[in-house]
């Protein structure tokens, strides 16, 4: 008998049907991959599992008993724990206090720390970390270890089903390896693990079973060994893989961006680079290799210590304002933190870096601006109610399109795109690849930073591999394979040790 079973779960929000008769099973001692594009209904399904939403129809059973949680705490008590992308920890509290938060062991309110520590230690030992210092405040742990603390909390609550939502999106390669080890231990201890992810390679590595969601429906499920990657993608997207990386022919022109020994405090090793019009230069490397720092240095977001930047043959003073004026556009990897003003509207965000066309003597012509933004939204197929909608109300993919609309609206000659496809669905990714190709064909140059090698190799003309703050090697994209890119990323770091 499966440990967790859902039968024909449906959930609607107004006219939108987020889930349609979703049925799946999670067995103890197995890892179930729940895959699907953004908006496919994964997060709604998760909220139903965790009790944050009540389903409109359908039933759930946990170990044969009817399971109908009324809230996250209720779900936890029943034995279903969620590990969200955004970790739920109290950063100032210690490891032990975080693990026991909400289920403290006490006598009349007086904490029994000894008993608590024993229990926490036990949970950590199950996960393979018996030696973690219990008194360290969690804000001094790496994201990977913080995640571990959350898993330990689930164990302390006797969780039988543990759901991971995109757990690796903010982890380094080492942490990912470690997390997988933890998940294997959970599997060995006969718990059921549900693993939600975009990354099919990861899914293949850690999961046993799969269920694919598309438009709120389960379009396929079974044992992972029976399907190959392209079949999974087809199920997710509803079309074949060939259409995923649309190629737009483009030609290289003269040099438009030239770095000469550019260095900043966070990019201490001087970098040299040349970029031509009509070129897409991919930048690969592990997290921490200095890719974002390179882009920040080029855009003068970090104080430049030495070196020069030439844009179209002109030396550029080291200020973001000057860079924008000379035709550079930057899309940050951190949409929430610095890329977009979340509470401001689409039109404000899309035009912030270039308001001149709509201003006369400092006064804005809002109507003119709105119609301009409107046409950009149509071109990029941004799904929103109006140009006035605030950013936070949009899905990740649409937010990213607004961020791109800003640099396009700015009419930048050189686009610096930092992980432009992170956390967005396959369909939107494909649109963004096409857009990049079109921009290159129009004579613009693009620096494209990505951790996802297949897209990097498919979309770029040349690929630079960075490690330890250094550009190690640049070759034409067709001269790289995923293996050689990885080899350079890793070897570089060892050579410096």
């Amino acid at each position, binding site marked *: 008998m499966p440990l967790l079973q859902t039968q024909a779960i449906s959930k609607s929000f107004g006219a939108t049907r987020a889930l349609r008769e979703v049925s799946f099973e999670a067995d103890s001692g197995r890892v179930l991959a729940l895959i699907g594009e953004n908006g496919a209904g994964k997060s709604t399904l998760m909220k139903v599992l965790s009790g944050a939403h009540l389903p409109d129809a359908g039933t759930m059973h946990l170990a044969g008993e009817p399971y109908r949680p009324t809230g*996250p705490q209720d779900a936890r008590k029943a034995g279903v724990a969620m590990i969200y992308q955004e970790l739920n920890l*109290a950063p100032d*509290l210690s490891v032990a206090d975080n693990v026991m938060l909400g289920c403290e062991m006490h006598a009349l309110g007086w904490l029994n720390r000894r008993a608590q520590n024993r229990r926490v230690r036990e949970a950590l030992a199950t996960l393979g970390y018996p030696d973690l210092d219990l008194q360290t405040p969690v804000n*001094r742990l790496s994201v990977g270890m913080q995640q571990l603390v959350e898993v330990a909390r689930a164990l302390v609550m006797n969780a039988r089903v543990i759901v991971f939502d995109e757990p690796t999106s903010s982890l380094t390669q080492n942490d990912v390896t470690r997390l997988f080890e933890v998940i294997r231990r959970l599997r060995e201890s006969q718990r059921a693990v549900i693993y939600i992810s975009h990354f099919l390679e990861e899914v293949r590595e850690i999961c046993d079973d799969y269920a694919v969601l598309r438009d709120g429906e389960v379009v396929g499920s079974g044992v992972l060994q029976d399907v190959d990657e392209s079949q999974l993608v087809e199920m997710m997207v509803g079309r074949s893989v060939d259409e995923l990386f649309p190629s737009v022919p483009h030609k290289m022109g003269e040099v438009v961006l030239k770095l000469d020994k550019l260095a900043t405090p966070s990019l201490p090793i001087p970098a040299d680079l040349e970029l031509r019009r009509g070129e897409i230069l991919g930048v690969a490397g592990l997290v921490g290799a200095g890719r974002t720092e390179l882009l920040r240095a080029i855009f003068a977001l970090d104080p430049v210590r030495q070196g020069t930047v030439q844009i179209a043959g002109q030396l550029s003073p080291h200020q973001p304002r000057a860079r924008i004026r000379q035709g550079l556009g930057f899309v940050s990897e951190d949409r929430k933190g610095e890329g977009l003003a979340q509470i401001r509207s689409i039109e404000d965000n899309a035009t912030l870096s270039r308001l001149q066309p709509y201003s006369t003597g400092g006064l804005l012509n809002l109507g003119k601006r709105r119609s301009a933004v409107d046409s950009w939204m149509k071109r990029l197929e941004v799904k929103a109610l109006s140009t006035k909608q605030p950013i936070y109300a949009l899905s990740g993919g649409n937010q990213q399109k607004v961020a791109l609309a800003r640099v396009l609206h700015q009419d930048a000659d050189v686009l610096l795109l930092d992980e432009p496809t992170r956390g967005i669905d396959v369909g939107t990714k494909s649109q963004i690849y096409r857009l990049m190709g079109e921009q290159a064909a129009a004579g613009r140059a693009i620096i494209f930073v990505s951790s996802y090698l297949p897209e990097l190799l498919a979309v770029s003309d040349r690929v630079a591999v960075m490690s330890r703050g250094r550009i190690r090697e640049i070759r034409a994209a067709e001269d790289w394979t995923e293996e050689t890119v990885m080899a350079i990323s890793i070897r570089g770091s060892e050579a410096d040790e």
Partner: protein
Amino acid sequence: MSDDKGPSPKSNAFSVQALNSFGVFLALVIVFLVFLVADQMQPDGGSFATWRNVTVICAQTSVIAVAALGMTLIIISGGIDLSAGTGLALAATALAWALDRGHSATTAVLLCVLVGSLCGTINGLLISTLRVVPFIVTLGTMSIYMGFAKYIANQTTIRPPLDAVPNWLSTLVSTNANDRWLGFPWGVWFALGLTIVMSLLLRYTVFGRYVFALGSNEATARLCGINVPLVKTSIYAISGGLVGIAGLYHFSKLSSANPTSGLGMELEIIAAVVIGGGSLSGGQGSVLGTLNGALIIAVIGSGCTLLGFQNFTTDIIIGGIIIAAVTLDQYRQRRFAT
């Protein structure tokens, strides 16, 4: 795995906290020594580092210190209470009013603490039910409480007849030799007792963990099944009770109560917490740190007076200390973070 822990295994939450409190204590010692030396260099100096002056400093700071104990709780939980000053004056006014009306001292004192506690409870309820940020709610109640105090006092200062004020109340923070017990007025000992109780509450009880959890990440606290509105209201209620007790001290100083005398006190109370290492973004702070913070302010006040500085100099110096303390704290946090 050791690479992830960053700090050495020996450094744990307790020692970090102890270190923070110790840092504030060290600052107190330094401030004290600076004034000691400056005082000695004066032609008629030597009165700063006397037992008598130390007693006066402690007695004077106890109003702020007691109220700041509650404020520590609030600030750790990520809140703020701007109404602490006027709430304190309201409690003191209620006390004076009751004594003036001929009620027994016990009734009056109970009323005082009760009024303080009620003020806090109202803050807590408003914050958790209206979901308005504490800054705004208490900005509002700050004015409301002062209004009530004025109403009770009929816009003047209430001076209950001297024989209505029991001796133990009027000598609460008296520094006369025969009012002292083991060197200090009993009010100072009581304040110290409260400090210890609050310190234990924060460190060894489930409630204490919830206070930190709330200030650290409220969403997580809710997810872990903590009754957030209840804990919040309790925090403000307890803090209000302490504000009420501070009202006793306030009344005792002059044996009278002025409804507007609490204005501005909230800032001194908050300053004590902040100098003591409390973080206005929540999750951090300690009762011992706050006590030291309050003492630092008092030592500077006393030192400046004895050095013949004018009142405004003291204000400027304290302002500078607040900014310096927070800057230093942030710098230290950042160093730990890497």
